């Protein structure tokens, strides 16, 4: 037995932290601890609960159950300002600085005591900014306006603020997402210096390589639960991916009956520089569910917006039933027979203030009311049909969209596009934020539609859903369609393609 000094108490401990949003269980009892002087990586698929965990640590959300212990103190009501006092700082992917103020002013605003009639000591403010910038190794002028700085420079300013505030716990949320490899190296140096000064760093990233270069320990989250904390030295790439993906598809998905059909939509080298979509080629057949997998920001929704004419393609060819089309606006796309059920249903999918029937008929004004004269009876009847067919739970066709639950709003959004009788249906995260019951109903509906001969493209960050529903799976990364896998692929292959990893043979 080695008898060393007892390990110091952790900077931060979470015990059985849980959080629900409406009916959705975002965190179901997570244990997590952070030591002084370590980089602790947090890893998980989209929606695994990372953001919720961070928001609990920074005090933005209160956990429904469980305990937060910071520096030995058990906290029940952690608020953002209390978190700040306790030395918890968070550096987000998008720096939250005031672009029109200078570096010194931004640092001053964060660190100097507030007070409406306080005199500003400009030379002191400048001096402090210089010191902090030097400590994080940033060669920046305190007088520079933040809008003139690059993204990594802004991150350094954020880190300088954290250092200046005496932060003991620094959360970094995908800090390298928009950095070049040289900028990344510089950031790593700063992170290592913070670590050697005794700061604990929670580091979130999708890039496995970074985790192996930088982190000491890694915790993997899956479906709102922590599935293991391990020293990085004790785990391999493949082992990590296996942890993230975990169990097999355990939910029951309706079986596919796709046997092949006519090609409905074909893309040949389609790209749109403004949207960040490059050289996408694929073909979707009638009756097929084509799953689009990838990480958030991989370009899946962007591709959908290109097809739907929201950001028209600037290169390549789109063929619908063999005929080339160039949708320049959603109105044109709808007329051609494309339908897009958007990801953000509260902003784009349903007009919350308007009743269900008006929401459902919104995309078929021209067909339902050819003379532009509203026929309210016809509209009501159509809405009632969809409410019955899709089992929308509501007070009636006149109930405003905002009165419905997430799953029922999604059904209304879906109904609007089914009403257009499209040739191709693009679904963007169709079950995100939807409770389990409505989720399997939506899956059943999607399968029925495909069976009836509709070509479906389904974007999803929910890996089991992609595996359970897709006849083929396209994986996107960095705006490109990198891989097309058969529907019976295993989760590891999809995850590895999304992360850009070559799986070693036999690793799975």
């Amino acid at each position, binding site marked *: 037995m080695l008898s060393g000094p007892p390990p110091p108490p952790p900077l931060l401990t979470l015990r059985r932290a849980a959080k629900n949003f409406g009916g959705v269980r975002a965190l179901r009892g997570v244990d997590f601890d952070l030591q002084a002087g370590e980089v602790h990586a947090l890893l998980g698929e989209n929606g695994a609960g990372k953001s919720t965990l961070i928001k609990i640590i920074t005090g933005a959300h209160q956990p429904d159950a469980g305990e937060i212990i910071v520096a030995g103190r058990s906290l029940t009501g952690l608020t953002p300002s209390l978190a700040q006092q306790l030395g918890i700082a968070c550096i987000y992917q998008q720096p939250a600085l005031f672009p029109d103020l200078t570096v010194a002013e931004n640092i001053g605003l964060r660190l100097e005591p507030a007070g409406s009639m306080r005199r500003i000591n400009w030379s002191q403010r400048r001096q402090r900014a210089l010191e902090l910038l030097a400590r994080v190794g940033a060669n920046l002028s305190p007088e520079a306006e933040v809008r003139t700085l690059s993204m990594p420079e802004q991150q350094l300013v954020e880190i300088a603020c954290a250092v200046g505030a005496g932060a003991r716990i620094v959360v970094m949320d995908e800090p390298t997402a928009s950095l070049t490899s040289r900028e990344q190296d510089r950031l790593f140096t700063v992170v290592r210096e913070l670590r050697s000064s005794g700061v604990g760093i929670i580091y979130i990233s999708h890039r496995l390589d970074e985790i192996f270069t930088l982190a000491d320990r890694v915790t993997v989250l899956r479906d709102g639960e922590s599935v293991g904390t391990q020293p990085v030295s004790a785990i391999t790439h493949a082992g990590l991916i296996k942890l993230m993906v975990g169990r097999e598809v355990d939910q029951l998905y309706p079986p596919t009956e796709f046997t092949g059909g006519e090609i409905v939509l074909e893309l040949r080298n389609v790209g749109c520089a403004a949207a960040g979509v490059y050289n996408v080629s694929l073909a979707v057949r009638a009756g097929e569910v084509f799953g689009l997998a990838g990480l958030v920001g991989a370009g899946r929704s962007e591709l959908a917006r290109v097809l739907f004419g*929201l950001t028209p393609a600037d290169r390549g060819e789109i063929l619908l039933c063999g005929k080339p089309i160039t949708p320049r*606006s*959603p*109105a044109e*796309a*709808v*007329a051609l027979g494309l339908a*897009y059920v*958007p990801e953000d249903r509260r*902003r*784009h*999918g*349903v*007009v*919350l*203030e*308007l009743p269900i029937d*008006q929401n459902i008929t*919104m*995309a078929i*004004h*021209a067909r339902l*009311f050819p003379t*532009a*004269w*509203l026929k309210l009876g016809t509209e009501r009847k159509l809405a009632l049909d969809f409410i019955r067919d899709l089992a929308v739970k509501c*007070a*009636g066709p*006149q*109930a*405003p969209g905002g*009165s419905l639950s997430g799953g029922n709003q999604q059904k209304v959004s879906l109904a*609007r596009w089914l009403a257009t009788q499209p040739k191709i249906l693009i679904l963007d995260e169709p079950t995100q934020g939807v409770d389990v019951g409505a989720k399997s109903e939506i899956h059943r509906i999607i399968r029925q539609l495909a069976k009836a001969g509709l070509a479906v493209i389904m974007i999803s960050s929910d890996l089991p859903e992609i595996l359970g529903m897709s006849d083929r799976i396209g994986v996107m990364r960095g705006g490109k369609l990198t891989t097309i896998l058969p529907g019976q692929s295993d989760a590891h292959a999809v995850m590895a393609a999304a992360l850009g990893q070559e799986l070693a043979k036999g690793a799975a």
Partner: protein
Amino acid sequence: MIAANNQPSWRRFLLRYETLLLAVLVIEWLIFYHYGTSTNRRGHLVGFGTLDRQFDILRHSCEIGLLALALTPVILTAGIDLSVGSLLGLCAIVFGKLWHDGGLSIPLAAALTLVVGAMGGGLNAGLITALRLPPLIVTLGTYSLFRGLAEAITQGAVTYTDFPSGFLFLGQERWNGLPMQAWLFLLMAVLVWILVHRTTWGRSFRVIGFSPEGARYAGLPVERRVSIVYILAGIIAALAALIYTARLGQAKADAGTGYELFAITAVVLGGTSIFGGRGSVTGTLLGVAAIAVLKNGLACLPVVIRLNAAEEISGLLTGALLLVALTGNAVPTFLNYLRARRQAR
């Protein structure tokens, strides 16, 4: 809102904003009828209660009423048009110049004036949809531009008069018992009501007002619909210019100065949300009537006559009425907010 659906229809009718406004209007009218009417030495009725006075109110409210009708669809799309009053002035001058100096017949000059109105609205529409500029700024610019053009054409001095009696009939005579322009106003009110409440276009104005992004994602032609409301506003402003010219018998560059503010007040008083989406043409008509009755009724009250301050007091009361209406509209939202906050705790 859902709760309201379960209540009997008579209660829903009583709780509607338009019903409340109608009640305010009736009370207002009765007060002025009671205090503003008297008998002169020869035993004739004078003041507010006379038929002549009522027709006067109608005649004077037609132009602002038309502008309020024009602004209702605009505000439903969460837009605003400050230039309608100035466009009224420009159209009056264009009409006068075409007839007087251009030697065109009255119908031809009137038709061309409507085209000029459409072009003025089209300029607003183009700047707003193609350049994606905010309507407030665009129409603040054309507000000065149109008035400036009107003054440039007349050099600030010329007014056009001596219109033929056939044209003046439009603004000064009665037809089937009502002033001629009231018939035109009613016709426009019915047309705008149909547009807003019974067509897919009116439906899309609301969608755009509630959520322009949502409208785009639903495949609605947002730019074309927004353009239509501004062009329509221009055409109606031109029609108001013709009626104005006929009523006064002269076309001058300062015609309709300040009318846009009265019109916006009437629309908002009528229950249309300045943030777009919510509102009705019926409400706008009631708003116009409430303001017109207030303005004219005050001028008949003995106390106001003695003070010789009808304009000032009517401005004061219009403002107060608007603030009360806005507060009344905001109360349910505020109560919901309080309830939500209590539940969050």
